[in-house]
């Protein structure tokens, strides 16, 4: 609707990088322009996490999101996609406030992938590094091949549209 207000609401976005660092590792980096304690909160409180984690492309809805964020605690995300549901679940291995989160991804058939997220604050900004270590080269190859890691890649074209509408709706609150 109001294009000027929308662009005011979303200042320059920081760049996201993705790198296949080895046969078993995938690394995503991004800077968020706020202190680590706030970014960490958004990763560890279910009611905040569910507002940003889910790809907003068509057909994928987050039905439930349970997170018991402490060492040994479990999480479970349930999505509906068309007529079926998909579940993602695992265990937190490390929880270091404002600096590090490690969890397992136990839903795969090929063994556990371990995700490590580090929050590195510098001058009020936070560098996020999301590091996925797959159990084997074959497991990462399979993820690449099926696109499972990428959510619903074929629908990502629609993201721009959705993000634009979300940008204006969140501002009204």
């Amino acid at each position, binding site marked *: 609707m109001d294009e000027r207000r929308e662009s005011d609401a*979303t200042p320059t*976005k*920081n760049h*996201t*990088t*993705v*790198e*296949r660092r080895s*046969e078993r590792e*995938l690394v*995503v980096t*991004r800077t*968020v*322009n*706020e202190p680590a304690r*706030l*970014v960490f*909160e*958004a990763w560890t409180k279910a009611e*905040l996490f569910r*507002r*940003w*984690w889910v*790809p*907003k492309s068509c057909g994928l809805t987050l039905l439930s999101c349970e997170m018991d964020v402490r060492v040994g605690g479990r999480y479970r995300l349930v999505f509906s996609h068309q007529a079926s549901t998909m579940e993602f679940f695992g265990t937190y291995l490390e929880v270091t406030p404002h600096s590090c989160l490690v969890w397992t991804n136990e839903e795969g058939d090929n063994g556990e992938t371990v995700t490590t997220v580090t929050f590195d604050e510098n001058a009020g900004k936070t560098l*996020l590094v*999301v590091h996925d270590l797959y159990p084997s*080269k*074959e497991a990462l*190859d*399979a993820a*690449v*091949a*099926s*696109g499972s*890691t*990428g*959510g619903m*890649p074929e629908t*990502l074209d629609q*993201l721009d549209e959705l*993000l634009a509408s*979300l*940008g204006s709706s*969140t501002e009204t609150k």
Partner: protein
Amino acid sequence: MVQYCQTHFDASFGALSDATRRGVLEQLGRADASISALAENFHMTLTGMKKHVGVLEEAGLVTTEKVGRVRTCKLGVCALQEEAAWIERYRQLWGARFDELDKVVEKLKRKERVDGRKKRK
């Protein structure tokens, strides 16, 4: 479909795991070459090089064409482009996710400011 893709990617990553095959790709990036020329450059038997080229061909990284008695190899970029495309899609997903994260964190910050003001009153 998924099965097909998986086999395909397995083949291309497998093909890239060998130093000689990466060398062959590098050389073909500069110019097409016959299998015998490649064998000579990499100090290999013709049979050994044929095997490597076969692996690269299966992965879609190289195409070969026989003209007369000479089989010429050239780069086929299809599989590499597919992996690059996947990485790009994955990057877009995370980019979108992080853009949403920005909004959530931004709100937290505003709330913190408001709460801070309330406390001071």
